[in-house]
C-alpha cells in the first residue's frame, strides 16, 4: 500500500502528458521553493489525538493481555493435527515479563480496557458524525478491484497504482478491518469477562471458549496490523508520518488546492495537470 506522498500513487489525469511529467518532475521539485509549497489538511485534530492515545493503550492492552494468556497458552497455529507453532516461545514471554503476572495483567487489562474501548468508541462516533468515514470506508470498486491492484503495485507486480483519495484502496480496507477488529476485540473481551452477566453476548460470540479464541485471534490481528502499519509508514516517508502529528501534508502548487476552486461540485476534476506533481516529503 503506498501512502499519498508517494508520487507514483497520485492519479494520472487523462489529459496529462506522461512523457512530459517524467521529464519535468525533477525541475518542478526543484522549483517548488517555499513560496510554492502549501499545506493541505490530512488528519483532523480529533483523529490525531485519538490515534496517538490509542497507541499506548493498545500496547498496554496487548502487554497485559499476554500476561493473562501466559497462564493458559493453549493456542497453536496448525492444520489438522499438524502443529506449525505454538504462541509463544518462552523467551518471548520472559522479555515481556509475562510469567506469573496473571493477576497484575488482569488488573491492568480490566481498567485500561475501558480507556481503550472509550477511545475507540469516540473515534468511531467522530468518524460517523464528521463524515470522515468517507475517506476510510472502501466502496465496492476499492474493495474488489483496487485494493488487490494496490497490493500488486506495492509488490512491484503492477506499474500503475489505481486512483485514490486520502487513502488508497488497500489502506481503506485495512483501516476499516482494524476498526471492525476493534469492535470484535471489545465485544469478545466483555464476553469472556462476564459470561454470566453478559450471557447474551457470550452466546452470540459462540460461547465462552470460542469468545476467548476470538479475543486471542483479534490480538494476533492487531499485532500483524501493527507490524504492517509501521512498515508502510516507514515506506511512505517522513511527510506522511508527520501529517499524523501536524495534521497537514506539504505539497507544491498552491493553486491546485485553492479552496475557491473546489467550492462547487466536488465531482468536478481539477482541470490542470498539476495535481500529479510530486509531493514534498520533508517540511524543511
Amino acid at each position, binding site marked *: 500500500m503506498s501512502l*499519498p506522498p508517494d508520487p507514483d500513487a497520485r*492519479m494520472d*489525469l*487523462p*489529459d496529462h502528458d506522461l512523457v512530459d511529467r517524467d521529464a519535468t518532475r525533477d525541475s518542478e521539485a526543484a522549483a517548488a521553493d517555499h*513560496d510554492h509549497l*502549501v*499545506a*493541505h*489538511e*490530512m488528519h*483532523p485534530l480529533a483523529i*490525531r489525538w485519538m490515534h*496517538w*492515545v490509542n497507541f*499506548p493503550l493498545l500496547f*498496554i492492552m496487548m502487554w497485559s493481555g499476554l500476561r*493473562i*494468556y501466559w*497462564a*493458559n497458552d493453549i493456542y497453536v497455529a496448525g492444520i489438522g493435527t499438524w502443529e506449525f507453532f505454538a504462541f509463544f516461545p518462552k523467551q518471548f514471554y520472559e522479555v515481556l515479563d509475562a510469567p506469573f503476572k*496473571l*493477576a*497484575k495483567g*488482569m*488488573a*491492568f487489562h*480490566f*481498567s485500561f480496557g475501558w480507556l481503550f474501548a472509550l477511545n475507540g468508541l469516540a473515534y468511531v462516533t467522530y468518524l460517523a458524525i464528521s463524515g470522515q468515514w468517507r475517506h476510510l470506508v472502501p*466502496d*465496492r*470498486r476499492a474493495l474488489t478491484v483496487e485494493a488487490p491492484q494496490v497490493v500488486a503495485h506495492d509488490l512491484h507486480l503492477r506499474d500503475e497504482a489505481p*486512483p*485514490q*483519495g*486520502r487513502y488508497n484502496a488497500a489502506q481503506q480496507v485495512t483501516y476499516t478491518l482494524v476498526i471492525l477488529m476493534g469492535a470484535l476485540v471489545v465485544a469478545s473481551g466483555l464476553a469472556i*469477562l*462476564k*459470561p*454470566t*452477566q*453478559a*450471557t447474551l453476548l457470550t*452466546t452470540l460470540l459462540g460461547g*465462552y*471458549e470460542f469468545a476467548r479464541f476470538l479475543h486471542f485471534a483479534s490480538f494476533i490481528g492487531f499485532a500483524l496490523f501493527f507490524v504492517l502499519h509501521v512498515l508502510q509508514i516507514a515506506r511512505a516517508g517522513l511527510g506522511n508520518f508527520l501529517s499524523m*502529528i*501536524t*495534521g*497537514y501534508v*506539504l505539497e507544491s502548487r*498552491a493553486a491546485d488546492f485553492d*479552496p475557491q476552486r*473546489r467550492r462547487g461540485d*466536488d*465531482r*468536478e*476534476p*481539477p482541470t490542470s495537470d498539476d495535481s500529479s506533481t510530486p509531493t514534498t516529503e520533508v*517540511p524543511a
Partner: protein
Amino acid sequence: MTPDDPTPNDPTDAATTDSNGTGETLDERAARLQARAHEGRTLSRDDYRATSRRAFLGGAVGVAAGVAGFRWVQTQEHVDGIPAVLRRGHEFNADLWRTIAPADASAPEYPLAAAEDLRRNGRAGIRDEIDLDAWSMRVEGPDGELLDEVVLDDVMSLPAVEMVTLHKCIEGWSQVAHWTGVRFADFAERYASRIGDAQYVALETPDEGYYVGLTREDSLHPQTLLAHGLGGEPLTQDHGAPLRLYTPNHYGIKSLKRIGLIRFTRDRPRDFWAERSYDWNSHL
C-alpha cells in the same frame, strides 16, 4: 465532444468502465477521489509552520501527561499486590456489572452428557486428608457467635440440586462439570433470623489455609451450591470432600473446597487470592 477534446470526462477516453455501478466513469471516479483527498483546509507555509509548532507542543504535553499518568499508576500505593487505582478499577467493574446485568443473570446450564472429568488445581487448605466421618462445620453469626455445628446429614436433608455448568478457572481454562448439592440460599434460610444485616459470607477450610468471601447477594444466587457430589459421585478429598462451595458465576478460586467454617459477617471477608493480587469479586 471531439476526440481530441482533453476534457477528463470525455467518454471516448480509454477509461470508460462503469466504476461502481453508479454510471460514473473511471475518470470521473479518479477525479472525485482526488477532490475528496483535498477536502479540508489549506494553509500557507507560514501558517503551516505555526500549526506544526502548536501540534508538536501539544503532542509533547500529551506524551508527558501519558508518561506521568502511567508512572502514577505504577508507583502509587499498592493494595494487596496491585496499585490502589487498579483495585478501584476492579471494584468499579464489579459495581457496574452488578448494576447493568439482569438480576437473574445465571451461568448457562448444559446437558449431562457434556460433563467432563474436572481437573484439580490447587491444594491450599486441603493438603492433608481428613477423617470424613469426624468432619463438622461451624456456622457463625455477625458477632462471631456460634450459630450451629453442622454435620453432613444436616446438609443432605435440604432439597438436592443437580447442576451442569461451565467451570471457569481464572487462569483461562474451563470445563463442564456436573455438580450435586444444596442451594446455599436454602441452607442460609435456617439462620435468616440471626444473620441480621450481614452483607457478606466468609468461608474457610478447617485448617484456615484457604478462605474466600462472597457478597450476601451472590451467596443467595440459586446456582451457589454447597456441593457434596461431582460427576454423579460423592466428592473426593482432592475436590473438597465432604462439602465444598460451588459457584459457576465466579472464577473457580471462589469455590472453596472442604468447608470448615461459614460466617455471616458485616465486613468484607479476607480472601486468599485477593490477598495475592487478584480481584476480590472475581465475578463473572
